[in-house]
């Protein structure tokens, strides 16, 4: 049995669908709403957005950011010039509207209902593109720069970042000339289940910049995935990279590597891992480990310094 659908209804349906598709495209590409050419009350709603906005505009143009940015963004050191800026707990329409923003910069995964309420209230909302690597991070930087009216500043910043990346690559090439690149794996386990990151992640981008082989990516894994003890034992990496919380959960570990590092060092089943036996576990601050912005270059530099310290130690031990 078939139900005849009136032509007018079909047409309306097609129009509605087309409008939906068009709206979703607009959200990714442009702020929508009516943002001034140079907004002066910008609200950044995620750690990534805070990283980018704080790098492009003076603190006086930032109207607010989430408290979590004090753990997971470049503001983790709480610079005094940002101290007076309002902070909010969650990405909800009311606290954001209370800041009277003329531009709100959000991550692509943040609550679409809230973004819709903000747009309905006439606020311009810019959704960042998803960041899976360096090029995405530059694209996010340029998108925000366009929206805040600072394209030259973004160009300068990108130039500096590219130089830093060049330096990282050169040093990585030198290291790989002297010895085989380290076989590395990032690992996170807070008791629920272990996880790691393959290609198409910012951790992978950091590994590439430092010249580390990402064992998870070499297995063909894209994105984040579970990692069992058997995976770790089978891969037996030269180096394991974990994250170290800064303020939230402080005292969780009392040693390097946070809860994940502690688990790796104390789990008897993993005692045979080379990285455990030879203390080749390094910890990145959580704000860099989880960075979704251009700050992943800073993460790579931090990782590089940890790797160089490790290599120096290993060389020293070899000479003994």
């Amino acid at each position, binding site marked *: 049995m078939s139900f005849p659908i009136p032509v007018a209804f079909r047409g309306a349906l097609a129009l509605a669908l087309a409008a939906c598709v068009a709206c979703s495209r607009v959200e990714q590409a442009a702020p929508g709403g009516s943002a001034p050419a140079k907004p002066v009350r910008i609200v950044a709603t995620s750690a990534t957005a805070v990283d980018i906005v704080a790098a492009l505009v003076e603190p006086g143009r930032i109207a607010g950011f989430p408290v979590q940015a004090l*753990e997971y963004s470049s503001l983790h050191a709480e610079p005094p010039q940002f101290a007076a800026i309002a902070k909010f707990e969650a990405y909800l329409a009311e606290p954001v509207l209370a800041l009277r923003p003329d531009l709100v910069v959000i991550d692509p995964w943040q609550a679409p209902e809230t973004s819709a309420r903000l747009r309905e209230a006439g606020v311009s909302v810019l959704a960042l593109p998803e960041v899976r690597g360096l090029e995405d991070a530059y694209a996010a930087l340029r998108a925000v720069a366009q929206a805040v009216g600072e394209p030259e500043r973004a160009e300068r910043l990108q130039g500096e970042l590219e130089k830093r990346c060049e330096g990282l690559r050169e040093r990585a090439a030198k290291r790989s000339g002297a010895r085989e690149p380290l076989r590395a794996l990032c690992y996170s386990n807070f008791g629920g*289940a272990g996880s790691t990151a393959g290609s198409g992640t910012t951790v992978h981008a950091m590994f590439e910049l430092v010249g580390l082989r990402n064992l998870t990516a070499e297995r063909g894994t894209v994105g984040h995935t579970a990692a069992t003890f*058997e995976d770790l*034992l089978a891969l037996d990496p030269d180096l394991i990279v974990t994250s170290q*919380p800064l303020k*939230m959960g402080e005292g969780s570990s009392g040693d390097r590597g946070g809860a994940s590092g502690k688990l790796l060092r104390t789990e008897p*089943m993993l005692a045979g891992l080379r990285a455990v036996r030879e203390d080749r576990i390094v910890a990145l601050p959580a704000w860099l480990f989880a960075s979704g912005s251009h700050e992943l270059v800073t993460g790579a530099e931090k990782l590089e310094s940890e790797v160089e310290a490790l290599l120096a130690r290993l060389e020293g031990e070899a000479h003994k």
Partner: protein
Amino acid sequence: MKLDAKDLRAAALYALALAGLALASTNVGSSALKASELLQGLGAMFGLAEPLERNVQAIAELRLWRAICTIGVGAALALSGGLIQGMFRNALASPSLIGVTGGASLGAAFAILIVGGYAPRLVLENAAGFDAVLIPLFSFLGALGTTALVAMIASARGRTSVTTLLLVGIAVNMCVAGVFAAIQFLSLEDWEVSKAILAWTFGTLDDRKGLHCVTVLTALALSVAAIPFVARELDLLKAGEADAQALGVDVARTKRIALVAAALSASAAVAVAGQIGFVGLVVPHLVRLCGAGSYRKLLWHVVPAGALFLLGADLLQRLLLGEGALQPGVMMSLVGGPFFLFLLVRNRREVSTW
């Protein structure tokens, strides 16, 4: 209870099937391990062979612990389900009704918060070094504590009404779920901790060790020991409490023993493997469909049947989808639900007489 030739034959079949599936399960993993290496590694665990290279030996041991743990968890959940269904005289009852799952989740969430550093320094310092046992211990205590609370509130003058138990269970579950949701919400911003809490709710059979196996098998053994004290009584209870009492059944004692045994086995299972739904509900039904209708038979059969069910399902999904593709809790919900529906529809006539 006397065992006849049919029972012995069934026991032998169960043992053979379990051994075969367990061996097949140890042969599947993310790393390439030859069957000879695996056998040598397993032999080395019992001092029967030379140990393999350290990491390969650890892999062989992890696979054996996983298989044993899966057997224990499946058996414990199924037995708990059988006991709960008998006590509630309702074929749709499962261990989560009396707060086991909710309590275990809450306990695990607290433990993950401690591991993640959300506790006073004094607690953190004293907990140092106990991270590995903290989550199973807290979830076990959470499950038992919640069940005890449900039983205490539902009991009046030493008697426990099944209806009151059910309603109190629902109410306590709601309270526990509220606290659990609050913890999840408050830890949302710390993605490492919130991810760990979420991952726990999917259940896991990965990275299990001897401690997990001992925990679940000890609880299972204690619960199995309760079967002779409740099996006949649960059959008589089917006709109603008054009739059972007239036939000499100490109803209050039967319910107490069944409740403690069910809570103990389910708590241990959830503590070591997280939330794995459906086993407790569906395995007793499968056993009924195979002809074991009375609790005197059903309670004995659900133990190996539960073990086979979870071991087989876990092995099948790892073979079909690959290692780590689906966690057991997710897999059970995805496959168990439609499978249960299919059985119900196909056997509508028999089901109506349960």
